[in-house]
């Protein structure tokens, strides 16, 4: 009971600390920039569901905003404490390390889901001002892929933070080389990227959007399970790694 109480407090405490962090401001600025793109495009041409899915959901959100927000919060959940050298106050308390890891993820999850899901809703609302009627029903197709990919990304980056001291740099390199570069090459190599499964979900969601000829998506149901599995798998891997690894300053 005491251990559970500690962990519940850890979630609430870390949630509040993240809420007051600069990451929120940075995420808001990035979202505002994307909103400017949506408005400018809407003023010049009408948004269609297809165009919105391709440019906003898959490119601006899927390849940029969603991974960046997940990266900031995923690596920062533990990384911030490590950087300010205050992790000692957590690991010397009577909490299982795996619990600390899971609690830290739970604390950042609302931020990531609200920013990414809320960001999508906001951009969709803006686009509908200059959108065709079909855009009004498009949100239902895009929301689940964005939320599930957010989950997979944040679990992955949180896992990297448990494995590596400089997880942020590794994560940035990962986003550009794996998600952006490998995720857009022809063939099956792109299947190593999370964005591939996000796109497969979007293409298979019933939205009026078809994949490029060389994309070769998997079906939406499989993609959904892969993303959920990645989230659970990275949570388990990260928890195991965090439990075994010592948190100390280098000698």
């Amino acid at each position, binding site marked *: 009971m005491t251990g559970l*109480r500690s962990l519940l*407090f850890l979630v609430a405490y870390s949630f509040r600390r993240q809420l007051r962090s600069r990451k929120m401001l940075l995420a808001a600025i990035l979202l505002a920039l994307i909103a400017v793109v949506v408005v400018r495009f809407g003023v010049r041409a009408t948004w269609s569901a297809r165009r919105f899915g391709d440019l906003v959901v898959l490119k601006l959100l899927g390849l940029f905003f969603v991974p960046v927000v997940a990266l900031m919060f995923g690596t920062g959940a533990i990384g911030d404490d490590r950087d300010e050298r*205050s992790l*000692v106050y957590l690991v010397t*308390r*009577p909490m*299982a390390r795996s619990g600390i890891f899971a609690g830290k993820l739970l604390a950042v999850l609302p931020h990531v889901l609200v920013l990414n899901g809320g960001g999508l809703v906001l951009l969709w609302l803006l686009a509908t001002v200059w959108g065709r009627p079909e855009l009004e029903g498009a949100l239902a197709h895009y929301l689940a892929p964005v939320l599930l990919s957010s989950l997979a990304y944040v679990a992955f980056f949180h896992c990297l933070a448990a494995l590596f001291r400089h997880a942020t740099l590794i994560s940035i390199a990962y986003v550009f080389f794996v998600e952006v570069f490998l995720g857009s090459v022809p063939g099956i190599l792109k299947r190593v990227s999370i964005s591939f499964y996000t796109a497969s979900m979007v293409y298979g969601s019933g939205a009026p959007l078809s994949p490029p000829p060389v994309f070769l998506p998997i079906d939406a149901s499989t993609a959904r399970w892969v993303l959920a599995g990645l989230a659970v798998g990275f949570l388990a891997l990260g928890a195991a790694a965090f439990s075994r690894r010592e*948190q*100390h300053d280098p*000698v």
Partner: protein
Amino acid sequence: MSSMTPAAPPISLRGVSKWYGPVIGVNGVTLEVEPGITGLLGPNGAGKTTLMKLITGQLRPSVGEALVFGRSVWSRPDARRHVGFSPEVDAFHEEMTGREFVTAMARLSGIPRREARRRAEGALERTGMLDRCDKRLRACSKGMRQRIKISQALVHDPAVLVLDEPLSGIDPPGRIELMGLLRDLAGERKTILLSTHILHEVEAVTERIVLMARGRVLAAGYVGQIRELLAEHPLTVRIACDRRRVLAAALVGLESVAGVALGAPASAGEPEGGDGPGDVVVKVRRAGDFFRRLPSVVLEQGAEVERVEALDASVEAVFGYLVSGAGYGGYGGHGWDGGSSG
């Protein structure tokens, strides 16, 4: 405290070694620490901080076991319930006030909200921070931050306190106050392991010490006991008496005495080698034997002894000897530079 193993010592290390890759931090340490204050001494790189991290469950021993009340502090979170740790590193959640921080640490220890607030106030009061605890941590002085660190270590009322350089950055009156607090805590049967580089501070609060160098425990026990173990290293004793020449002649015949010299006469008019009142300085091989025999020799010679004092039985002297024996040849009581990390 109900989950403690009754017979188990508060802190127990069994053959503990810790490597950081090819570097050894702690080497084959077997140690038990009992209730009361124990000073942990050693130069930089001695392994003090590593030892403290092992005891607080931050590090996993490469070999051996680090136990708190018989439970592995690395693998059993419930063992950490009994441990309060004040780290040397000056790091906090800077945006918080002292009160918020200490309360948060209580809540992370599983204490319910209202009780956590009450305990935080209690801990802050004990460290003399209650009237200043609503200041943001980033605006606090070093001394205030040290007190906050000690408060968070105390807040869940642990039976074991591990304090890494807790008095650094605190002004002299504050040090005296906190040393008083440590003595009070020891009086409550808490087990306190205290590392500090200011040796007289250790002597002010305890005679029980653990001396470390190069990752090894060189000696553990009471300063006097440790000193006695150093049979081959003479102890210097000054005896102020009325018949110093007669007493010196008698003492020189003792097996435990390596040498005797006449010290300063008690009065200015007295000749240097005279038999009047003054000091006899004795180099002693085995302090225990010597002090057992001394009263009878004094009685036999009909001398009146005013004062007996060991000139080099201080922690610093013992430490200096031990450390120079361990290869820190440059140490002469002046080469101490802070021991910031072990």
